[in-house]
């Protein structure tokens, strides 16, 4: 047994004693190159696409400039899979082990995570690898260009899934609910026709085909997979694969502050109570901890982005102090970041953390706007609405097979970036194989239609 394994075992026993409840964790020590790729792809084995190549280079550049350091990656499931970086010190990796246990506890008990787990089973990592393999087979049989066209469309719409919906969702009911023929009153019966004429034939209205979609449909990936007029089976497969992975990423996205905060709270606590760790190692690990949860970059007094580790960590300490661990576990079970921030980021904490709302104008001037609590909460949460994407819905599948999309600009506050939207339509059109239209507003707020 290596030293790390010994510490990991003891930390785990401590964690169970302190009430953490999680599926087994498979740790793997991986080289830096793999860690970088996992950070880029979001999964250890995932479908190929050129856009990942761009992110990969950006990540390499950031790492080489020292702006980004990867400590761990953890994939919820049963068992959870965690990757430790082989270049990190023993102290770092001990800290990371404790941190991962916090994540594992969160992933098993948080409602959003548990819901996906129930729908998809605990082995999405294997599923994703299988998706990647099927896509590779598709590339072999249909050619890279064709598969890439499908991936261009599917990945561009990645965030456009119904996060509250089912993973395996049935098609719409084909027929509208049957309408009963209006009941005739005695009066109508008597005077509806002339005396002596034969009884009119009772006409059954019969089933009426429902409009598609029956309501604005925001799950674009699902809709295209099921209703595109000429989609091949393998293309549908790709769309559904991207959708499954997107649904898997959603809890991580929606609970980032809570989840990272919870893991940071637990790694700090586990290390504090781990009397079996040698003192120098504990000190080194503590140093790493304070690097992770610090609010500002070194030497600065303000930050224009809030470090989710720091915010989450502080919030959880606050909750545990104020309401006790039992209540904290309840909160962890029930909330996502929206509820967590709105219910538990209070005035006292906002003051303690020096939170503010700033405004960046087009002249690049940045100034502090206010320290209003509600404004702070909403500013933190704003990038998280609707999976971080504009609200775009399918409104109509026309008789000629063309597709109408509508951007809900009123709730998003402004129109779409027309240039990019046009390109997304171009991607979509290649898969939909019929005209695609999108209604939004332009920069002057006038109604605007894009078509491809």
């Amino acid at each position, binding site marked *: 047994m290596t030293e790390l394994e010994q510490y990991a075992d003891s930390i785990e026993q401590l964690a169970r004693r302190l009430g953490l409840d999680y599926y087994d*964790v498979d740790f793997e*020590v991986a080289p830096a190159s793999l860690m970088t790729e996992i950070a880029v792809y979001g999964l250890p084995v*995932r479908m190929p696409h*050129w856009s990942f190549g761009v992110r990969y280079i950006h990540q390499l550049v950031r790492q080489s400039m020292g702006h980004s350091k990867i400590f761990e990656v953890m994939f919820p499931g049963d068992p959870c899979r965690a990757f430790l970086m082989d270049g990190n010190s023993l102290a770092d990796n001990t800290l990371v082990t404790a941190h991962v246990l916090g994540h594992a506890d969160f992933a098993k008990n948080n409602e959003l995570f548990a819901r996906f787990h129930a729908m998809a089973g605990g082995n999405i990592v294997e599923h994703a690898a299988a998706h990647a393999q099927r896509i590779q087979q598709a590339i072999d049989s249909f050619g890279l260009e064709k598969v890439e066209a499908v991936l261009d469309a599917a990945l*561009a719409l990645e965030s456009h899934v119904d996060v509250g919906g089912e993973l395996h969702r049935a098609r719409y009911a084909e027929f509208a609910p049957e309408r009963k023929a209006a009941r005739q009153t005695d009066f109508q019966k008597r005077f509806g026709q002339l005396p002596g004429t034969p009884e009119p034939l009772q006409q059954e209205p019969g089933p009426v085909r429902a409009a598609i979609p029956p309501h604005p449909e925001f799950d674009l990936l699902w809709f295209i997979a099921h209703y595109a007029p000429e989609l091949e089976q393998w293309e549908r497969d790709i769309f559904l694969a991207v959708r499954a992975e997107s649904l898997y990423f959603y809890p991580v996205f929606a609970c980032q502050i809570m989840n990272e905060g919870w893991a940071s709270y637990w790694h700090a606590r586990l290390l504090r109570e781990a009397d079996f760790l040698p003192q120098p190692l504990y000190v080194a690990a503590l140093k790493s901890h304070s690097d992770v949860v610090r609010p500002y970059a070194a030497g600065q007094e303000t930050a224009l*982005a809030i470090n989710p580790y720091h915010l989450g960590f502080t919030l959880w300490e606050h909750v545990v102090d104020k309401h006790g661990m039992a209540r904290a576990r309840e909160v962890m079970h029930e909330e996502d970041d929206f509820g967590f921030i709105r219910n538990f980021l209070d005035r006292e904490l906002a003051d303690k953390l020096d939170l503010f709302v700033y405004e960046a104008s087009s002249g690049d001037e940045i100034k502090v706007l206010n320290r209003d609590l509600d404004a702070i909460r909403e500013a933190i949460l704003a990038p998280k609405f609707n999976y971080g994407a*504009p609200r775009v819905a399918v409104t109509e599948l026309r008789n000629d097979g063309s597709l109408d999309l509508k951007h809900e600009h009123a709730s998003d506050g402004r129109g*779409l970036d027309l240039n990019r939207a046009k390109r997304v339509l171009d991607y979509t059109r290649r898969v939909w194989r019929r005209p695609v239209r999108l209604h939004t507003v332009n920069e002057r707020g006038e109604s605007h239609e894009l078509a491809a």
Partner: protein
Amino acid sequence: MIRIAAETPWYELFSRGARDWLRHNQKVREAVKGSLPEILSGDDLLSAPGGNRTVMVPVKFLEHARFRLAEAASQQGAGQGRGEPGDVLQPGRQEGERAAQSGGTENGEIRFVVEMKLDEIIDWVWEELKLPDLKPKRTSTMDEPDYVREGWDRRGARSRLDRRRTMKEAVKRRAIQENPVAIVNEDLRFRQLVKRPTPSTNAAVMFALDVSGSMDEAQRKLAKQFFFFALQGIRRQYAKVETVFLAHAAQAWEFEEREFFQASSSGGTVSSCVFQLGLEVMRTRYDPGRYNVYFFYASDGENAAEDREPAAAALKSLAELTNYAGYVETGGIATFRPRETQLAEMFHELQAAGMPVGMSPLGSQDDVWRAIREFFKERAADD
């Protein structure tokens, strides 16, 4: 139970990030095709020797588009630290500063450079425009006798001994002889040469440019791009291509390529002098009997009125000798003209008379392609 797996070495076998990065670069190359003319405007593109020349093309990363909200006039965010409402954390930049910055990289955007082979680029262009290959003239005067290997003989110069063939003969002989000798004189075989006429594969390309005051910088740049692609098209076909650069205003000079595009002259336009100079060059250096001569001329089309007759005559004799004479008229589409220019008229007359000449307007970047397509299509049709 925490299991710490042993390191699994397959990760090192291939990098998925690198694979997708290479695919991205491949797509970039394809995207670059679309903007070739702007890329190819270096100083010595035309006369630099062929072969493995490359150009460095600065490119941006491709962006995989997603739905995104339009840029707002001002953005709000949550921050942390000291500061009272109203405090300015970062002063706005002055207009001048912004302009200076936008010349560099915007938003810390990373740019990179791809190296592209020129030949590869030219092949793309030909594929894209679906251009046919040029054919050399097939007149008898074009034929240039050459020695070609053909057959074997028992006698010959030692240097042309065919060892392989000789050994075969020896083997055959030994197979039917008793107590054979290793090699005898009768086994020897020598390669024979015969005289064969072959079509000439030399080409000379003359570029003539009007450098009178009426040709502005943009027009010259277009002419240069056109010249470049015309030359590349000819290079694709001929083993050896020589270039001549002629510029003229009221009189004509020959230049090195480097100075050629810088040359400028005030004064009027007398086209006949450059046609004469072209004839002179052919007479002294590129005998049309041995060279496939191409003549390309770029001008804004305004020639001195009194030069009409001499120019027409000189152009006619030039067109008779060259494989092809092409004329591009710069500014042709962009500016309003009440009538055809004098030079355009002259070329049209020759074209109507069935001479191998062509003309095309050159007003914008796209016209470069149009002109290339026009000239090379016509050449194929002629043959």
